[in-house]
Structures are given as structure tokens and as C-alpha cells.
């Protein structure tokens, strides 16, 4: 990982990016890497800058400073459509399906850049295999789907581009615990079966740490912790601030929080 022995085979390398919303500096120098074929997660509280990191990577925002490499090519100055062509799909927060198009049309939109009809057909079959419910809803307007189904559609649409790297922004948002489990099981399957590398941003730290290989903790635009997930899970600060473990004090309860040290 950056700073340590840098991984030789990284699909995504982000170094020192700084992003602004007008005068406000949202990302204050973030460096991270996604090794090929791995799932990497970025955890953080509201407003930590997680979504901004993803938007900066996919080109929706331009970084003021820093470099981003996708598979060895610099992409920090490219427009989003160019980046998508290079094999990066971004599943935005809140699903953002095209509500008035049918499920089938939404999926086609995902394959907009592709011309191999056979390949597209094969991929559609695979997607129906992951998400059988989508097949049943093929001709319904996407806006009429439930939240979980929309999330599935959003992920599927991104997969239709056959990405090398998938950016997932809070796939668990607003879903029931059972659905969250289901979605995460499929994320793991997609990663294992297709070899798609995944950068996952999550508030649901427990699920994210279970499914990912490597994790970063983001706080007010800076990375404060970076480690393998099995080690992150054991860290005291992650347990207290992200997994909700309560250390009980002498009174049997404890309201005050100890200072974060991130180690």
C-alpha cells in the first residue's frame, strides 16, 4: 500500500489528490490503491469525503492536485465518459437508475459503449443469474422498482460495461438488513467470478470490513488508517467509532468518547 512497499499490480493508484467544492477543500491529500482483483473499502463518517473521492476518481470532479492512474494510465484530467471507456464503472450513491426507462432499457444503457451483441447477450444472462428478480421485471419502468431492486439494477447496469474496476457508493443505503446481506453476497460473487476489482464506500462498516480485503478510514478529507480488514476489525478505534462496541465505564455506561488515535 502507498507509503509501504507499493503493490506492483494495482488497477487503481490514487496519489495526493485534493478536491474542492468551490472554496471548500473536501479532500485534503488522499492516496490509496486498489490491487487487481481485490475489494478495497473506504470507511468514514458523514462528510468525511468518501463520495468525493469516488467522484474525483470517476472524473465527475477534477482534482486540484494529485494523480490518478487506472491500469497504468493517468486519468485525472479525463472526462467521465473517457474514463468509463477505459473500464471504470461508477455506481453512484442513491442508485440513480433512469426511472422512466424499463429495466431492460436501463441495462442496455449500461452496454451503450459495446458493439459485441453476443457478449452483451451473454452478460445479460449472467446478470439474470445474479439477480433473477430483474428478469421478472424486465419491462417495468425502473422507477417502479423497490429500493433493493433499484440497487441491483444500478449494479447490473454498471456491470454491463464489463468494467475492470467497479466503484460502489454505499450499496447498502436504505436497504433492509436482509437485503444488505444479499447485495454484499453478490458483490463478493461478482468479485470472485468476474475478477472485477472493487472500490467500495460504505457507512455499514461491519459489512464492508467483512467483504473487503483492505480498508482505509477517511476523516475530514484525510486518511487516518489503512490496513488489511482483518486487522482493522480488531483496532480499538474502529470498534468503538465504526462498529459501535461499547466500552463500559465504572458506571456501567459511558457517554464520553475517548480521543481517536487511529492505531
Amino acid at each position, binding site marked *: *500500500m502507498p*507509503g509501504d512497499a507499493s503493490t506492483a499490480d494495482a488497477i487503481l493508484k490514487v496519489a*495526493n489528490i485534493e478536491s474542492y467544492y468551490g472554496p471548500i477543500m473536501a479532500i485534503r*491529500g488522499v*492516496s490509496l490503491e486498489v490491487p487487481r482483483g481485490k475489494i478495497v473499502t473506504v470507511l468514514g463518517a458523514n462528510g468525511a469525503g468518501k463520495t468525493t473521492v469516488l467522484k474525483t476518481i470517476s472524473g465527475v470532479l477534477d482534482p486540484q492536485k494529485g*494523480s490518478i492512474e487506472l491500469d497504468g494510465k493517468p486519468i485525472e484530467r479525463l472526462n467521465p465518459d473517457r474514463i468509463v471507456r477505459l473500464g471504470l464503472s461508477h455506481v453512484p450513491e442513491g442508485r440513480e437508475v433512469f426511472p422512466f426507462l424499463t429495466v431492460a432499457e436501463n441495462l442496455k444503457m449500461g452496454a451503450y459503449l459495446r458493439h459485441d451483441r453476443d457478449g452483451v447477450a451473454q452478460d445479460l444472462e449472467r446478470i439474470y443469474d445474479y439477480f433473477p428478480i430483474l428478469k421478472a421485471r424486465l419491462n417495468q419502468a425502473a422507477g417502479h422498482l423497490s429500493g433493493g431492486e433499484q440497487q441491483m439494477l444500478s449494479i447490473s447496469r454498471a456491470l454491463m460495461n464489463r468494467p475492470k474496476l467497479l466503484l460502489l457508493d454505499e450499496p447498502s443505503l436504505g436497504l433492509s438488513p436482509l437485503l444488505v446481506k444479499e447485495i454484499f453476497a453478490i458483490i463478493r460473487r461478482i468479485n470472485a467470478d468476474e475478477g472485477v476489482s472493487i472500490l467500495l464506500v460504505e457507512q455499514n462498516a461491519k459489512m464492508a470490513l467483512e467483504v473487503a480485503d483492505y480498508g482505509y478510514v477517511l476523516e475530514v478529507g484525510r486518511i487516518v488508517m489503512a490496513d488489511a480488514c482483518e486487522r482493522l476489525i480488531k483496532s480499538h478505534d474502529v470498534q468503538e467509532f465504526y462498529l459501535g462496541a461499547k466500552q463500559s465505564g*465504572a458506571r456501567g455506561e459511558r457517554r*464520553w468518547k475517548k480521543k481517536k*488515535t487511529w492505531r
Partner: protein
Amino acid sequence: MARAQTLTIGDTIAKSFVLAGEQRATRTALREKQFGIWKSVSWRQWLEKSKAIAYALDASGFRPGDVASILSNTKAEWVYADMGVLCAGGVACGIYPTDAAKQVEYLLVDSGSKVIFVEDDEQLDKVLMVRKRCPQLQAIVVDDMEGLSGFSDPMVTSLANFIARGQEHMAGREQLWQQMLDARRLEDLAVLVYTSGTTGPPKGAMHANKSVLAQMRHADVLFPITDDEERLLFLPLCHVAERIGGYYYSVATGSVMNFAESPETVPDNIREVQPTAFLAVPRIWEKFYSATMIALKDATRFEQWAYRTAIGIGYRMAEHRLAGTSPAPLLRLANMLAYWLVLRNVRKMLGVDRCRMLYTGAAPISPDLIKWYLALGLNMYEVYGQTENCGVATSMRPERIKLGTVGQSVPWGEVKISPAGEILLKGDFLLMGYLNKPERTAETIDQDGWLHTGDIGSLDAEGFLRVTDRMRDIIITAGGKNITPSEIENQLKFSPYISDAIVIGDRRPYLTCLVMIDQENVEKFAQDHSVPFTNYASLTRAKAVQDLIWGEIAKVNADLARVEGIKRFHLIEQQLTPEDEELTPTMKLKRAFVNQKYANEIDMMYRNREAA
């Protein structure tokens, strides 16, 4: 126009306070920020609060001579409680809010505290955890009750209820007030100050009213005090520097005490308060300096040129000041322009533009740093003293600044050097002894009443004291060369990228050092130079950062004799907080502890030297 201020001094600290409260009545005594707004408290209001606390203590069976501890950050309630205890004839003992429960237990037991004032639920938890092992403890008073509404315990009361109880107890007992105040005399124990204990368990220095008053009654001797003084209090009040220099001096002189919101907000608070005098530790002065240097790097070329020109003039003025010569009229004029056009902005940004005096003490400081403040046109005076002498023992005077020394002995004390080179102090300000440790007292104060400071130093012909180092810190290399680590360390700390450093080399072939980086500035450096890093540890491991620090060390090495050069270094990879045992509450690295904890890393620096 500001007028000279008369001191309020009585026979005891408590009586001085009562005198101050009565004389200054409606004038502002202190200010605190509540929900973002500075609120004033008058001397009379403070007196009434502390009086009620004294009565409440009496009602809970607290008698003159009993000890009460205060476990809180620096805030108004600290001084309310402290004066309450002193007015009740008690002995007040401060505990660092960063101390762990185990240390709190040690201090409660060692001091035999009957009552403890705690800041909030966080501090309360520490006391609850250890109270069954503190048999003398009878009452716990909590200031901030947030989160404790559902909590009840026969031993625990809120400060508000405690004060109310005191007010009830007052009725019909008017004569008790004078009795409590008269219960203690000049020679009686008033204050316990625990030394931070870089080696061994903390020792409780016992100070009588006499030693505190010895300092208080001379608050205006070296520096004139006017009636419009403003101070900012932010160092821990359990430490003698803020307790005497910030707090008890203000009681004597009537300075308004402004309490910083927290240690992190000091730079903002000082800008808001614009104090007239500021006492700080070198760490803060270093921080101010490096903040200015970093801000300059982002400034335009013109601004950088303006600063360089102005500070250059300032440095020439400072040279005159140090040499005691008077500058040519042209230079004076240039300096006036430099001040109004440039340096005033720097001073305002730092918040010290109104400061008539800056004091630095409690740790060694680099002379170059003092010179910078002098070049800004500020009066920075280095003072030297210890917990054991209740504050200042030597001080620079406005008339004469001699860099590299800590000034001359204060007129109300004496300084001499023992044949072994140790600095010895004498005066009314000396401690009575260490609580429960007669053998340590005997080691420290000799039969003739001289305090052995444990510092090595020398006095020059004019009586200026030069402090070399702590006696036990002197390094003797394997080659037999005597080296004073603090001198090198101060030079290192002058770098904006180094927050603290510890030089190692006792009985070793060469010198090495452990470095704690300044996180903010090194992060900025990494960002500016596109050095990827994730967390603190990876920052310290980055090659560019290692090179940067080595460059800073090389600069210091260039000024040192060849044998003294630092050959290798190691960056501490863990971000340290005051809760960590490596740091003292004032964020200094503890030499002995660090030497032990990083033994492996230190050994590595002495292995396969060729790699260096």
C-alpha cells in the same frame, strides 16, 4: 490610560484572594467562552462562588489542613474550586486531566485527598473506578453533569448543588468564614504540586502559603503591571507555570484571566483575546514560528519579499537591543515602517500584537527562536524555575537580554553553582519538602537550605545563569566526550518539521536521535511534493520525508563539532497524544521512558553502521 496596579497581598493565598475580591468587586476577574461568546465573571461573583464552596466543604466534614484534589482542564471552575479549598483552610492539589485512572489513584492515595472536584463524566469514571482503593475519599463533586442526569451515588454531587449546600450552610454561621480564613498561617501547607515524574512515581512538592506569596508579592517587581492586563490561560493549572504565572499572579495583580476553550483552540483564542502578556512553553513558541513559516510558503512573491525585508530590519534592531547599543535614526525609521506595513500583520495573526511581555519557560528554548520574536519587536523574556521553587527563580530583565542564558536571579532569591556544577537555589519560595518522601526531601534540600535542582549550569560575571542540561541527561559517548543533548535537541526542534527529538548516545560510539515529526507541517510538505501517504506511520516511512528530516538534522550537524554530529535517526511511527506514556502532559517526550520503549529501534541505529 493604563495606570500602575497595586498588588493585593494578604497573609495567605486565601486572604489575598478575599482582599482582591473585596477591592476589585465589580471589575472583571475572568472570562470564559460559552456557546461561542466570551462571558465575564467579576471578582465579587468569583468570591461568592468560592466562599460557598468553602462553606460546603465545611458542611461535608472537611477541616482545615485536609486535602482536596482537582481533576479538570484549565477552566473557571478549576479556580473556583481551588480558592474554595484554600478559603476553607484546605490544601489544594491538582491532577492532570490526561492522567489515567491508575495515576489518579496514586495521587489520591498519596495526597490523602478527602474531596475531589472533577470536570465531567469522563473524569468521574476514573475516580469511580479507583475509589474503593482510596479509603480517605469522602466526596466527589462534578462540575459538568451532562450525561449524568440518571446517575445517583451517595458520594457524588454536582458543583451547582454543592454550592447551594454551601449557601444554606452559611446562614447563621457568619463567623465561620473568618475562622476558616484564620485557620491557616504563612508557614502552613497550602498547595501540593506533583512533579510530572519523568523518572519514578510523581513526588508531591509541598508549598506553604509562604512560598506562593513569595512569588505573588513580587509579581510587579521585574515587569510593570498596569490595570488593563489581559492574559490567556491554557496550560494545565496543576503545573506550577500556569498556576503561579497565570493564575496566582493574576489574583495579585488583577489581570483578567481568559480561559482558552481547549488546548487545540489556543491559536484562535489568543487572536480573540489579544492578551497583553503571554506565558507559554517553547513548544507553543515553536508552533507559532512554524505556522508563520508555512503560511509564508503559500504567500505571493511580493509578500515574501516584504516579509524578508521587514524581518531583516527587525533583526538589525534586535542586534542593537542585544548589544545594548542605540540604533541609528534611519534604522529606527525603517523599523517603524517595517512594523506598520508588515510585522504588525504577523503579530496580529499570531495574536500577540498587544503583548508587552512574552515569557517562555518550563523547557529549554533555542536562542534563534527568541531572536525571531525580538525581531518582530516583541519583548520575549526567558525565565527559569522549577516546581520546587514555586515558579520563577531567574529571569531576563527588560534592561538586558543575554541570549543563551536564562537571565539573572530574581531579587527575592539566590542562585549559586555547586562545586559539582549543579545549580542551587535559595529563597522564601522553596518547597517545604516532598509529601511522604522525607528521604527525597533530604536529597533535594541540603542543611544550609539550598535546593539542589538537578540541573547543570554556570553563572557568568554579570550573574546570568546558563543552564546546560539535566544532570542525569548528560551523555558521555563511548569515546569519553561529554555531550549535552538538550542543546542539540533545541536546535532540531527549531525546524518546522520536527516537533520533538531525543538525542541518544550514552556509552555509544556515536550520536543518534529519535524524532517526532510535526504532523501538520510534514503532511503539508508531502502534499506539496506529491509524496503519497495514507496514515501517520506511512508518512514517517516515506523516503522523501526521511530525506527531509535528515536534511534538517544535517543543518544542525553543520553547526556542531564533528564528534557531536548525529549519525543516524529514527522517526517515531506512532502518533502520540498526551494520554500516551511517552509524553508528559505538556507534550514533551520523556527521555527515560522513550529510551526504554524504543530500545529495539535504538539498537537498530547502532547496528550495521555502514548502512548509515
